[in-house]
């Protein structure tokens, strides 16, 4: 029993893919709520939400990862993560369980992964029945490089 190598991940789904964020980075998970659009902002920015009086930017993680857009009628979930500039919400399709993973199962992202997904992942945990893609939240939240109004 080596407890030191165990890590907890908050997991969620995006277009069938199984992602995870270190649980200590997640502040809370909240239901989808109405957002205020930000005109002229980069298209990964879904809008602004009111989180108990605090204005939180919501990033559409599907768009951030270059995945196809959610179909109409599908309601995303806000995963609010702590970042150095304040809380930021990531919009995901569906929330999963908190899973414990062993560091030994970790492997760097396969080089065949394309484009943005590869840059934004720290690596992959090989779970028994599926793969857990570990998201690099810092990189995912850094949207400063994305041009404003990239259609």
């Amino acid at each position, binding site marked *: 029993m080596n407890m030191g190598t165990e890590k907890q991940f908050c997991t969620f789904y995006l277009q069938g893919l199984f992602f995870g964020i270190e649980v200590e980075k997640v502040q809370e998970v909240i239901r989808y709520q*109405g*957002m*205020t*659009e*930000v*005109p*002229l*902002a980069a298209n990964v*920015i879904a*809008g*602004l*939400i*009111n989180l108990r*009086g*605090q*204005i*939180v*930017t919501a*990033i559409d993680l599907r768009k951030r990862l270059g995945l196809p857009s959610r179909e109409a009628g599908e309601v995303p979930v806000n995963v609010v993560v702590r*970042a*150095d*500039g*304040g809380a*930021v919400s990531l919009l995901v399709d569906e929330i999963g369980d908190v899973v414990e993973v062993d560091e030994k199962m970790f492997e760097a992202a396969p080089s065949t992964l394309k484009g943005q997904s590869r840059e934004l992942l720290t690596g992959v945990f090989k779970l028994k029945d599926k793969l857990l893609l570990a998201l690099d939240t810092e990189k995912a*939240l850094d*949207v*400063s490089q994305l*041009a*404003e*109004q990239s*259609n």
Partner: protein
Amino acid sequence: MDDNLNARRGESRDTLSPPEPEVAEHRELDVSHSSIRVDVGLLDKVMNLVGELVLARNQILQFTSGQADTAFVNASQRLNLVTTELQEGVMKTRMQPVGKIWNKFPRVVRDLAAECGKEVELELEGAGTELDKTVLEAIKDPLTHIIRNAVDHGVELPETRVAAGKPRTGHIRLRAFHEGGKVNLEILDDGAGIPLERVKQKAIEQGLVTSGRAAQMSEREILNLIFLPGLSTAGKVSDISGRGVGMDVVKTNIEKIGGTVDIQSVPGQGTTFRIKIPLTLAIIPALTVTSGGDRFAIPQANLLELVRLEGNGSAAIEMVSGAPVYRLRGSLLPLVYLNRELKKPAASGEQATNIVVLQADDRSFGLVVDEINDTEEIVVKPLGKQLKGSSNFAGGTIMGDGQVALILDVLGLAQKANLLAEIGAETAAHHSRGASEVQDNRELWLVFRVNRSGQLALPLSLISRLEELEPSTVEVSGNHEVVQYRGQIMPLVPVAKTLGMEPENRGQSLSVIVYSQEGRSVGLVVSEILEIVEEEITVEGRGQQAGLLGSAVIHQRVTNLLDVPGLLAAAQIPMETRA
């Protein structure tokens, strides 16, 4: 009753008659009891909570307007009053006298004066004027800078002063006072004043304005040139000043907190800087408007008036070479359409035009919005790091219904709409060229297309004329199509074909861009001339295709930049000069 009480107090004092020292001690104790030190973090937290309360109050007031229950209405009115008072009270706890940042100025002035060999006296007036802590911190550096400038540039050397019939010792006065809900700060010196001619000359030399433009400038406009980045009138560069960095930063810092700076200068008699800043930034009165289905807040500090054009309002709006203006009491008010600026769909059903007249810098302009809603106190909240780059919004706020609304950055908006461009654009261009080797240039570009798929651009400076030609005038010479043009044979280059793009069918007339070099002209055949834009562009993907310089983003669209010599080479049209 009161008399009675006073009498009794007097009596008790008399009878007790404590010895002197004890009284002094007592008073000291009183003072220490009446003030306590509080952690600023705690005050910020209380401030935030009061902000929340203000929001909740706004929400309840919205409910109240539709209620008939008097008891409820009364209670909510009391809540309203108490909240307002609480808000003022909490605001006061964050207030600090401006003297707190002033107390180091005498030393700054003394040291600097000694260094420059000058004699300067500093007078402080109104040190007790109170300001919000955040505002106070924000003006500390700009103030220091202006004072250093006053000593270094303003006040002359003692000998010069005596020769000019002034007292040996220069005088700098710092004044602070409240006026019209704002704090006014004045820095007056009795020095040499700002040499207008020198400022003008320097600005022309450094390419910040053209000489033609400078000749038309008013005194006030010339004075405002010192706020441009890069301008310094000092003959030599010293540790203290003359590096041309500073006044622009002063101005931006003050404007960042919603303040304004104004200069007055009389040659030989001195310079006055007038700074107006809001008391606080946390809770501000704002006008809410709706545009493109979203609500936006506009700080009232920027608001001048509201104009509503009934009926078909667009009739009253005239165009000056493509720019909409409205005649407001005889003077032209440039109009900016918020929907267009924010790339939102225009409102359907032209019923009435709502114009919000705003002040930005020294100019006023009209912002056309779909709907004007209401004024209310809003709590300014910062936007996340992800939106920091946006110059359109100054922050966010939470409205009565719990939804987030964005606060418009009026200055940023005006700049974006090129309202303040005259001086600013020239400066920006000058800087980007001078400061870095990066290929950034603000130029006029002719944007056109050669087929349905994309747009191309050429610098306007390379183009001598645009022509529409009859297809019947086109003749064939060798492998090339040519036309007779101004007594010459001008070869035509089908741009789409040469670049290997899908050509479009030619219509009734040919759009031709005439490119001239050393007396020879070539006509570039395109499908449609789209527009002329002035934009600072960054060229990417250089030299990937013959005939193209690379691509850049113009008006949010990826645009290929044409390389005419390359294109002519590809079309096998010789452009050598005739010996």
